[in-house]
């Protein structure tokens, strides 16, 4: 893939938390206009990757270019401008502002970033809420919403300013089957209709594979596979197939690094 096609381009990036190395010198290209799913076992730092791309965390080394801008070196002003113009992030919890109603939550970014008249803000908010099927819930407060509804409101809020790139943090966790299939379709149709670049962090192999153009598999700080879902399942390494098929044992470790179990059990407590 050539560089022009990559919306996000990561080169030689390392990141550690305390003594734990989360990313070890990784290279990754996220293609423009496609849905890319980032998958991997818990604790591999998938959410961390989103925060690195969003500039909320700084890597120890390497570059993270979003639409040509190297995020870690941006100053506060340009970084906020880039986020405003380009990025939308959907948090796992929804992260709605608890003191504002559903309507005001969706209106918030529009009010802050534009000088549009009230009537136009109303139209925009209703359009976004209609897209997630919650136009009727606009007067509710976040505390009155279920988890799935809160996430849909958050999705409406995230697309309020029509970002070019959407970052989804575990969008499928804890949804009932109906909300789940609606959310899956919504992410795909938003991506196609608005020509977005979507990055999806998730555990749900089936859902992700049904909409993702590419899947990126992470394990132990490395990219162990990057390809279309079909190719990964067919041609991936043993490690990749283990994850895609959910097998408990294999090259991807289930255990957090530790001393041998028997050594640990028989260690004398001082």
């Amino acid at each position, binding site marked *: 893939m050539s560089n022009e096609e990559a919306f996000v381009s990561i080169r030689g990036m390392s990141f550690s938390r305390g003594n734990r190395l989360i990313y070890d010198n990784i290279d990754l290209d996220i293609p423009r206009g496609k849905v890319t799913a980032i998958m991997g076992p818990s604790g591999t730092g998938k959410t961390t990757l989103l925060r690195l791309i969003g500039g909320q965390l700084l890597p120890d080394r390497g570059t993270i270019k979003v639409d040509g801008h190297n995020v870690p070196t941006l100053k506060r002003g340009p970084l906020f401008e880039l986020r405003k113009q380009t990025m939308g992030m959907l948090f796992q919890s929804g992260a709605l*502002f608890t003191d504002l109603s559903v309507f005001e939550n969706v209106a918030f970014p529009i009010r802050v970033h534009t000088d549009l008249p009230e009537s136009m803000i109303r139209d925009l908010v209703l359009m976004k809420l209609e897209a997630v099927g919650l136009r009727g819930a606009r007067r509710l407060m976040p505390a009155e919403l279920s988890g799935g509804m809160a996430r849909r409101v958050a999705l409406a809020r995230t697309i309020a300013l029509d970002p070019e790139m959407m*970052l989804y943090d575990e969008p499928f966790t804890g949804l009932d089957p109906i909300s789940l299939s609606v959310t899956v379709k919504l992410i795909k149709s938003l991506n196609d209709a608005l020509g977005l670049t979507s990055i999806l962090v998730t555990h749900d192999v089936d859902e992700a594979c049904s909409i993702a153009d590419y899947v990126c598999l992470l394990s132990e700080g490395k990219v162990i596979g990057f390809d279309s879902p079909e190719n990964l399942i067919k041609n991936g390494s043993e490690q990749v197939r283990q994850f895609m098929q959910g097998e408990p044992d294999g090259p991807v470790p289930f255990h957090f690094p530790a001393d041998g179990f028997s050594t640990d059990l028989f260690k004398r407590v001082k």
Partner: protein
Amino acid sequence: MGLIDKLLSQVRYIGQAGLERIQGLGRAGVFLYSSIAWGGPGSAGFGDLVKQIYSIGVRSLSIVIVAGFFVGMVLGLQGYTILSDFGSEAALGTMVSLTLIRELGPVMTALLFAGRAGSALTAEIGLMKATEQISAMEMMGVDPLKRIITPRLWGGFIAMPILALLFSLVGIWGGAYVGINMLGVDEGAYWGNMQASVSFYDDVLKGVVKSLVFGLVVTWIAVYQGFDSMPTSEGISKATTQTVVVASLAVLGLDFVLTAIMLGGV
């Protein structure tokens, strides 16, 4: 060898703790600068500022007024007992009002404010952080310092002197109630002596300056503790306690420094 190692690790521990404190101070300083540097009270819209003055100031009114009345009554009672030994009950008004306006008004209000509004601010901002609301704001390209912190800082700065003045006012009424109605101090002497001896510049204005400083410092500590807290339930409870403890000590320490400067003793 073992002893030396232990000693060294103690020294290292103390050094580390010291460095962390100093780093914390530095972060808090940068935090205050970046919040204030974004501009005046209305930088996030006057609606937000009014909302903050309401939740920080107006909602602290009841506690400040009740406390002020009781403190004034106690001052009336104690002052009367002491002054009557010297036959100078007529000076009760002067004593009560100067004590309140110069010292107890600003200091007690700031302490009550730290407990009532400061802890609430810390918990609110800590929870916003824990529920990713602050991250969400950042990712929308909205600066949380400007949106969340600046209006709260200004709210505390504006509300505190008003609360302190009300505390003193109600306290003086409380002193008058006990002195005049219960202990029989002459009403004319109480109010007349007060009027003659309280100076607007030396007493009232200096009291207001104190409470402006306390307002800024207490709110600063509260919002910083919230913003810097660990986003867990334990982290938030620790930060809330920390706000009350640090803010109260800061108020008492600063009160001494400010009084010394104002009296020209230092």
